[in-house]
C-alpha cells in the first residue's frame, strides 16, 4: 500500500517538474500573434518555428526571447497581415540572413548532400550489417554470446 502511494507521489512530482519545464515554451509561444485570425495564427506559429534565431543559434525565433527574434516575429506577423504568402516570407528571411535562417533548407544543388545524408548513413549502416551477418553465418552462436 505504502509502496504504491510512494510510486504515485513520485509520478506526480515528475509530472509537475515536466510541467514547469514546459512553461517557458508555452509562455513564449503566446507572444506576438495578437490581431491574427485563427488561420493566420497557425501560419505564424508554423513559420516562426521554421525560422532560426540568428543570435541564439540553436533556437527557433518562436522559442527565443532575443531582441532580434522578437523583431523577426514582428516582421512575420506584419507580413502575414499584409497578405504575403508563407513562401514569400521565407524568401524575405532567406534573402537577408541566408540558408541558415531556415531550419528546413531548400532542396537545391548546394543542399543535395545535406538532404541525402540520412539515407547515405542508413545505406552505410545496412552495408556493414549485411557484411557482418554474412560473415557470422547462421550457426555461429559463439559470436552472439560475445556480443550480448
Amino acid at each position, binding site marked *: 500500500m505504502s509502496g504504491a502511494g510512494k510510486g504515485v507521489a513520485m509520478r506526480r512530482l515528475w509530472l509537475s517538474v515536466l510541467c514547469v519545464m514546459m512553461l517557458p515554451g508555452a509562455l513564449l509561444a503566446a507572444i506576438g500573434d495578437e490581431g491574427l485570425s485563427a488561420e493566420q495564427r497557425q501560419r505564424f506559429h508554423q513559420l516562426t518555428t521554421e525560422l532560426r534565431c*540568428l*543570435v541564439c*543559434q540553436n533556437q527557433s525565433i518562436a522559442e527565443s526571447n532575443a*531582441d*532580434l527574434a522578437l*523583431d*523577426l516575429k514582428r*516582421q512575420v506577423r506584419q507580413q502575414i497581415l499584409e497578405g504575403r504568402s508563407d513562401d514569400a516570407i521565407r524568401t524575405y528571411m*532567406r*534573402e*537577408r*540572413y*541566408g*540558408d*541558415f535562417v531556415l531550419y528546413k533548407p531548400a532542396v537545391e544543388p548546394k543542399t543535395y548532400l545535406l538532404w541525402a545524408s540520412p539515407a547515405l548513413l542508413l545505406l552505410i549502416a545496412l552495408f556493414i550489417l549485411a557484411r557482418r551477418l554474412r560473415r557470422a553465418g547462421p550457426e555461429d552462436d*559463439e*559470436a552472439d554470446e*560475445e*556480443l550480448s
Partner: protein
Amino acid sequence: MRAHIWIPLLALGALVVLLYAGMQDMDRALPSPMIGKAAPSLPVPENSEAAAVLNAAQGQPRLVNFWASWCQPCLAEHPELMALAERGVTIIGVNYKDEASAAARWLDRHGNPFAVVLRDPEGAFAIDWGVYGVPETYLIGPDDTVLHKKVGPVDDAYLRDELQPRLSALKGPAS
C-alpha cells in the same frame, strides 16, 4: 572475435573527437547572402548636411557600421574605426536601437569616426541588411554592391586580411 568489443568504443572515441573539433569552431559569423548584391537602403539622413555627405560617399568605397552606445564590442572596435577614419576611409554609422542623446554623448566622449550618423531606432533597416548583432560592418564598393560583411568588432585580423586587400584591389585598377 574479442576485437569486436572495441568497435563501439572506437566509434565513441571518434565521435568525441569530432564533437570536440566542432566545439573549436566557435566563429558564429554566418556567411552573408548580401555579398555581391546591391546595398540595401539606409535610413534617411536627418539634415541636408548629412544628406550631402551621404551623397558624396556614393560611388566611393565605404564602410557601413551598425553600432549602438549600449554595445560593449562597439566600444572595443572604436579605436580601429577612429584610425580608419583618420586614414581617409569613409565610415557611415548606423545607430542601431539607440537613444539619439545617448548616441551623441557616446560620440562626444569617445570621438566620432563616422562621416555621417544615420538613425535606425527600430532596427528595421538593420533587418534589411541582415544584421543580427551589433557591431556589424559592411564594405560597400564604388558600384554600391556589398563586398564584405564583418560580424563582431573590427580587429587587426579583419583590417589586415579582409579590408586592406579589398581596398587595395579597388584602388589598383583606377590608378
